[in-house]
C-alpha cells in the first residue's frame, strides 16, 4: 500500500511518501510545495496529485493518507468561528470567568485573564445536580434545558457545549440534554463534556468541550474537501488525521472530536523522532525543533514520548493527553535588541514577513538568522539551492547599530546574540529537565526544524550533550512522523474518591481495555491488521500531595496487577524523580488511563555501512563559534556524503534548506541510515 504523510507548515506543505512495504526508511521520498492560503486543502490536494502522477497510482490502488494540520489550532488562536454557547450547572455560570483564578503574570498591575470562548451572555445554567459520588442530588429540570436551548438559539449560537458538574462520574444528565436538543433543536450542534474527555476539573473540561465545539465546523469543512477529492480520484484511499497524542485517527473520528487534534503539529515531529530513535536504538531522545519564532523541546524515554497534562492552545488548557512539548525560547526570526544597554534576543520575532534582514524581504531589524549568517553558520550562497538568497550585507547593516552602541565589531555583536540566545534556552531547558528528572548528558539531542541543526549543536555543546542526531530529512520530519504513526487512543477513568481494591482496579481496567479495542476497530479497514498494544498508567500521589505522577502499571498475562503492586511502582517512581519516597504514607490513585495503540507497519531501518571514504569538502569557510574564528572550516554538502563518512568539527554540512553546524570537539559521521550523527567523547 502507498502511504503519504502530509504536514502543513506556515511556508511549506511537506510530503513524505512510502511507496511499498518492501521499501526501507532510506527509500522514503519527500518533497515540499508552498502552502496554499487561505484554502490549505489546495496544496494538500496538489501534492497528492503530484504523487499520483509521479508513481502512476491507479484510481483503485489502496492509499493511506495521514495528515497533520494546524487548522483547528489556528481557528482557536484567531477566534474566527461563529458564536457558540455553554450549558453549565446552576450556580456555576462563571466557570469560564473564574478560570481557576490564577493570572499568568502574577504581579503585573495590568494583568488580565484570557477572554473566554463564550461570553457570559451565552452561558446558560441548567437546573440539576449530580454529586461527586455520581448520585443525583437534583433531577434534571427539562424545562430549564429547553429554555436554555431556545435562549442559545435566540442569541445566535450555532453550537453548544454541555459541561455539567460531576458529569465525569455520571454523564446521564448530559446525555439527556443531548437527547432533548436532538428533539427540540435538531439543527443545533450539541456536544457533551463526558463524550469529549470525562476527566475531573470542571473548568478545564468545559474549556475542552467548547474547543471541540468551536473548531468542529472548520475541521468538518476542511476534511470534507480532501475526502471529496480522494473519493473521486483515489477510490480506495483512506484519510487519517494526526492527534495531539502523536498517533492517528480516522477522518470521521477527527470530524466529531477535533479537540484531539489541537496539538497534533508538534506531536507529529516527536512521533518521527520516536521512530528514528527506535531505528537507531537510542534510549533517551531530547527533541529540539527550532522554527522561525520559537524552539520546542520534548523528551522521549525508552521509546515513550512524554505526555502532558498541562498543554495549552491560545492560553486555554487542553486536558486530553498530548505529547508534551516545552517552548524554550528564541527562533531564527527572533529579534536582537538592546534593553537599556543590555543585549537581548526575542521574544519578539520578525516571523516570515518581513523576516530576518538577510532575507531581503523588507526586514531591517537584526535577528538570530542574521547572526548565523554573519558568523558563517548559514551559507552566503543561500538556501533551497539558491532559491532563498541570503544577503550578508543586509545582515551586517542590521547589526551595525547594536555593534556601534556596544563599541564592538558586527561579528562580535552577532556572536554575542547567539550566545545570549543559547543562555536563554538554557534558562528554560535546564528547569524543564529538572522537572522530568533527566540530565543533559544522558540524552541524545535530535534536531529538526529550520534552524534546529544550526543552533542545536551550539546548545548541546554548552549543556554537555554528547550525541546529536540530525535526521536525513529534517525539513519534512513532521510529514515523516505522519507516515509512521500508529492508531492511538487514550481513555481514562476517574478513581478519585473510589474505594481502592484489586477488584475495583481490575474492573476499571477491563472497561478501558474494551473501550480501547472497540475504538481501534472503529477506525476502518486498517485496524484489521493492526497489532494492539495497551499500556495502563495510573495518576497517583501521596494523599497529602496535590500533584499526581503518571505511573505505568505492570501487566501480567494482559491483566492489571494489584493495588499494592501499583503502590510499589509509585514509591519507586517517586524515589526516581525526587530522591525520596515514604512507603508508610497513604497513596491515592486519582485516575486510571489506558493508551491503546493499533500498530501499523513502518519502513524498515534497512541501512548499509560503507568503508570510511574520505570526502573532499565542497569549500572551506570562515566560521565563528564561541568566541573563536576558524578560518578554514570544511563545508560538506550532504548529497556527497555516504554512510561511513567521518570528520572532525569545526565543520558544516549543507542540506537543502538548512545547514548543520559541527562544533569543535564533535565528530560528525553519516550513520548507516543516512542520518547525521555527531558525538564527542567528554
Amino acid at each position: 500500500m502507498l502511504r503519504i504523510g502530509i504536514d502543513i507548515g506556515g511556508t511549506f506543505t511537506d510530503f513524505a511518501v512510502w511507496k511499498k512495504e518492501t521499501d526501507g526508511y532510506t527509500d522514503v521520498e519527500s518533497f515540499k510545495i508552498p502552502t496554499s492560503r487561505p484554502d490549505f486543502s489546495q496544496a494538500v490536494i496538489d501534492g497528492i496529485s503530484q504523487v499520483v502522477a509521479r508513481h502512476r497510482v491507479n484510481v483503485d490502488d489502496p492509499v493511506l493518507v495521514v495528515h497533520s494540520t494546524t487548522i483547528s489550532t489556528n481557528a482557536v488562536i484567531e477566534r474566527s468561528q461563529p458564536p457558540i454557547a455553554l450549558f453549565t450547572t446552576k450556580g456555576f455560570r462563571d466557570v469560564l470567568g473564574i478560570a481557576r483564578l490564577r493570572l499568568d503574570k502574577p504581579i503585573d498591575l495590568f494583568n488580565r485573564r484570557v477572554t473566554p470562548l463564550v461570553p457570559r451572555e451565552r452561558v446558560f445554567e441548567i437546573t440539576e445536580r449530580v454529586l461527586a459520588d455520581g448520585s443525583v442530588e437534583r433531577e434534571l429540570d427539562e424545562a430549564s434545558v429547553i429554555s436554555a436551548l431556545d435562549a442559545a438559539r435566540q442569541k445566535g449560537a450555532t453550537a453548544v457545549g454541555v459541561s455539567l458538574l460531576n458529569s465525569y462520574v455520571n454523564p446521564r444528565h448530559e446525555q439527556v440534554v443531548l437527547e432533548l436538543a436532538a428533539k427540540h433543536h435538531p439543527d443545533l450542534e450539541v456536544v457533551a463534556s463526558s463524550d469529549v474527555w470525562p476527566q475531573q476539573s470542571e473548568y478545564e473540561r468545559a474549556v475542552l468541550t467548547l474547543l471541540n465545539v468551536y473548531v468542529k465546523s472548520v475541521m468538518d469543512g476542511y476534511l470534507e474537501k480532501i475526502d471529496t477529492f480522494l473519493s473521486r480520484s483515489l477510490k480506495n484511499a483512506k484519510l487519517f488525521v494526526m492527534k495531539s497524542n502523536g498517533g492517528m485517527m480516522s477522518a470521521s473520528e477527527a470530524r466529531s472530536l477535533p479537540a484531539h487534534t489541537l496539538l497534533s503539529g508538534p506531536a507529529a515531529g516527536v512521533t518521527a523522532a520516536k521512530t528514528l530513535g527506535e531505528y537507531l536504538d537510542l534510549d533517551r531522545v531530547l527533541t529540539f525543533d527550532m522554527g522561525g519564532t520559537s524552539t520546542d523541546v520534548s523528551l522521549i524515554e525508552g521509546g515513550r514520548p512524554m505526555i502532558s497534562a498541562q498543554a495549552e492552545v491560545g492560553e486555554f488548557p487542553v486536558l486530553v493527553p498530548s505529547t508534551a512539548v516545552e517552548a524554550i525560547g528564541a527562533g531564527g526570526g527572533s529579534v536582537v535588541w538592546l534593553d537599556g544597554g543590555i543585549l537581548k534576543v526575542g521574544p519578539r520575532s520578525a516571523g516570515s514577513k518581513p523576516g530576518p534582514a538577510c532575507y531581503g524581504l523588507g526586514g531591517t531589524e537584526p535577528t538570530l538568522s542574521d547572526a548565523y549568517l554573519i558568523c558563517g553558520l548559514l551559507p552566503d550562497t543561500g538556501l533551497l539551492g539558491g532559491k532563498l538568497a541570503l544577503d550578508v550585507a543586509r545582515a551586517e547593516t542590521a547589526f551595525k547599530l547594536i555593534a556601534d552602541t556596544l563599541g564592538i565589531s558586527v561579528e562580535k555583536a552577532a556572536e554575542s546574540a547567539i550566545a545570549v540566545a543559547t543562555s536563554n534556552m538554557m534558562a528554560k531547558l535546564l528547569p524543564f529537565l529538572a522537572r522530568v528528572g533527566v540530565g543533559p548528558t544522558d540524552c541524545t539531542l535530535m534536531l529538526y526544524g529550520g534552524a534546529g541543526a544550526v543552533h542545536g549543536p551550539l546548545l548541546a555543546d554548552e549543556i554537555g550533550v554528547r550525541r546529536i542526531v540530525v535526521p536525513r530529512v529534517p525539513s519534512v520530519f513532521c510529514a515523516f512522523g505522519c507516515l509512521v504513526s500508529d492508531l492511538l487512543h487514550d481513555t481514562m477513568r476517574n478513581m478519585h474518591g473510589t474505594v481502592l481494591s484489586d477488584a475495583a482496579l481490575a474492573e476499571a481496567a477491563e472497561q478501558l481495555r474494551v473501550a480501547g479495542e472497540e475504538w481501534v476497530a472503529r477506525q476502518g479497514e486498517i485496524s484489521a491488521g493492526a497489532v494492539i498494544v495497551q499500556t495502563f498508567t495510573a495518576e497517583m500521589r501521596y494523599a497529602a500531595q496535590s500533584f499526581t505522577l503518571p505511573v505505568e502499571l505492570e501487566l501480567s498475562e494482559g491483566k492489571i496487577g494489584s493495588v499494592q503492586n501499583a503502590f510499589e511502582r509509585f514509591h519507586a517512581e517517586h524515589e526516581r524523580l525526587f530522591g525520596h519516597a515514604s512507603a508508610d504514607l497513604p497513596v491515592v490513585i486519582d485516575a486510571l488511563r489506558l493508551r491503546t495503540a493499533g500498530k501499523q507497519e513502518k519502513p524498515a531501518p534497512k541501512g548499509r555501512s560503507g568503508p570510511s571514504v574520505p570526502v573532499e569538502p565542497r569549500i572551506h569557510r570562515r566560521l565563528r563559534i564561541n568566541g573563536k574564528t576558524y578560518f578554514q572550516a570544511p563545508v560538506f554538502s550532504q548529497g556527497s556524503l555516504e554512510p561511513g563518512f567521518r570528520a572532525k568539527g569545526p565543520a558544516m554540512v549543507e542540506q537543502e534548506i538548512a545547514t548543520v553546524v559541527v562544533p569543535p570537539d564533535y565528530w560528525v559521521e553519516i550513520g548507516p541510515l543516512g542520518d547525521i550523527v555527531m558525538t564527542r567523547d567528554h
Partner: protein
Amino acid sequence: MDPILTEIMKNRFTAMAEEASTVAYRTAHTTFVKQTQDFQVALATLDGEFFAYPTMTGVTNGSGDSISGMVKAIDEKILPGDVIVSNDPFNTGGLATHIMDVHLVQPIYHQGELVCYAWSFVHASDVGGAVPGSISPDLSEVYQEGLRLRPAKLVREGVLNRDIVGIIKDNSRIGEAVWGDLEALMSAMRLLSNRVNELCEKMGVAAFREGVAGVLSYSERKAREIIGQLKDGTYTFADYIEGAEGSEPILLHCSLTIDGDEAEIDYSGSSPQVRSALNFYSGERSHPFLCLGLTNYIYTMAPTMPVNGGSIRPIRARAPLGSVMNAEFPASSGNRWVSVMRIYDTLIGCLNQAIEGGIAACGAGQGGIISASWIDAATGRSRVSVVEPFSGGSGARVRGDGVDANDTMIGYLKSTPVEYVEVEVPLVVHRYELVSDVAGHGKYRGGAAIRIEIEARVPELKIAVRGLDRFRFQPWGVYGGHPGSNSAGEVIRADGRREVIGMVKVLTLFAGDRLLMTSSAGGGFGPAETRDPDLVLRDVLDGFISAETAREIYGVEIDGDRIAADKNLSRGGEGSEFADTAIAIGPAREAFEALWPVEASVEYSKAILALPFGLRGIVGSRARAELEGHDGQLTPQAVRRSVEAHAAALAA
C-alpha cells in the same frame, strides 16, 4: 556592567534558581505548599541581596528581601556544608515575617572560597501553638502561635543536628510532613550549590562575581528609569484594616516621596501594633513588604528586567518601630497578609498621584484561605483540607476593567476544582460564581466579587477562614470611579434561620447548614458616565450590571441587545483630565472620618508611639474611650491632649 556577560549570566542564574525552585515544589510534602506555592528557593550575595529569584514557581514577591539579618545572627563562622534555620522575625531582621515561614540558608563555597548563599523558605502548615495551622487572627503574642527558633545551625559541615530536627518535629501537629518540606528545600539548595560550582568552574569566580554585580545593576538601572518617570513630590494616602470585631480601624498611613530616580516611602502615622495577629516586624531596612506597590509597578513597566534585589536599591522605606508594620517583640503576625495587602493599597494610592493619569483603583484587598476540618467517620481521625482561596475583584486600571474574582497583587492564587473539593471534603458547593452589580462603577469598572455557598454533609464541619477584610470600609474608586462593595458572610442553618456572621474566623456547620460568603469587589476608575457605551451594553448583556444601572449610573439606555440612547455626548478623558480627582471611599469610611479624620488618627498614632512600650495599650484604650464620645470632628490637638493627659495620669 558588561552588556553581554550580564544577560548571559542572568540567564544562567535564572536557570539555576528556577530549576531549584521546581525541584523544591515537586518534592515538597504538604498540600499547602502545592496549592498556595508559599515557598521559595533563591540565591543571595554575600551582602544578603537576592541576585537570582524564581518567577515561574513559588512566591514571587520577595526578590527585594535580604538574608543578612539571619546570617549575622550566627556568631560563628559559617562553614561549607552548614545550613542555618530560623523562623524568628525578631532575630532575622524581619526576613521571617511570621513564624510559620521557616527559612534556611546555606553558604556556597567554591574551592574554599565563599561565593554566595543559597536561601529557601517554606510556609510550614503547622508550627504548633494554640490552633491547628498555627494562625488565628485573634492570637495576641508570638508565643501563642507556636515554636520560635532563633537562627541556629541545623546542619554543621554536613552533619545534621538531630536535636533541632527533634524540636521541629515535636512542636508541629504534622511534624513529619513539615520536616519533609524542609528536606525538599535542602535538596534544592544542594542543587544550587552544585550549579554555582559548575558555573564558577566553567567561567571563573571573577566572571561569576561580575555577573552577580551586573544583574543587580541592571535591575537597579531599570528601576531608576521607571521611578525617574514619576512626578517629583511627596504624596500621602491612608487606608484601614478592620481588625478584630468591635475594635477601632487600624490606620495605615503612607507617604511617598519621589526625588529624581529615587523614592522614599514612610509609614509614620500608622497605627501602633495591635493585640491581634495583623502585625509584622520589618526591621530597619527597606523591607519588601513596605515597597510592593512600587516594585510591582516597576516590574509591570519594565517586564524584561531581571527579578532581583537591584529593583529595591533606589527605594528607601521605613516604618516606625512599634507600628503595625514594624511591630516589636512579642507581636503576633500569623494574619499579617491582610496588612501587607492594605499597605500595598496605600502605596498604589500614592502612585495614583505620582503617575500622570493615575494607575489603578483599590482592589478587594483580601486574600483569604477557606479551610475545613471534620472527623472522618470511618477512621475517627481528624481531617483538614483547604476548600478554596478567597479574594475578590481587583481595582479598575487606567487602561481597563479590574480582574474579576482575584486581586492583581495576588494573581498567583489558584482555585481548586469544585469537583476535586467535593471528593476530598464532605461538603457540597452550591455556587461558585461572580456577583453582579457590586463592582465599583466607572469609565473602567472594578473586578467583580466572587461568592461561594457550601453545605456541610457531615454532622460537624468546622470552617476556618483567615485573611478576610473589607466588611466595613469599601475598596475605593479613583478619578470619579465608584467604590467597590463590601465583603459579607452569612450562615443559613438547616432549619432556614439566617445568621449574619461578618468576618468568619472559626465556624461550625452542622449537617445541612450552609455558609454563604461574598467577597469585596474592586473600585472603579474614572467617571461612570464616560464609559464606552458598547462596554456598558456588553456588561448588561453579560448580566454584570442591570439595565437600570446602565441608565441611572452610566447614562446609557439599553433596549434588548442594543443601545437605545446615550445621554452623554462627551466620553473622552483619561486620568488627570477628569475633573473629579477625589477618592470615593464610601459612606462607612466617610462616617468614621467625620469623627476621626486621617490627621487626627495620625496624631493619635504618633502620640501613642511616643510613650514607653508598656504604657501604649492602656493609655490608648483610655484615650480612645474618651475621644469616641467627642462631639464633632476631632482635631489632632484634641487627640494629643487626651493621650498626654491619660499618660500623665498613669504616671502620677
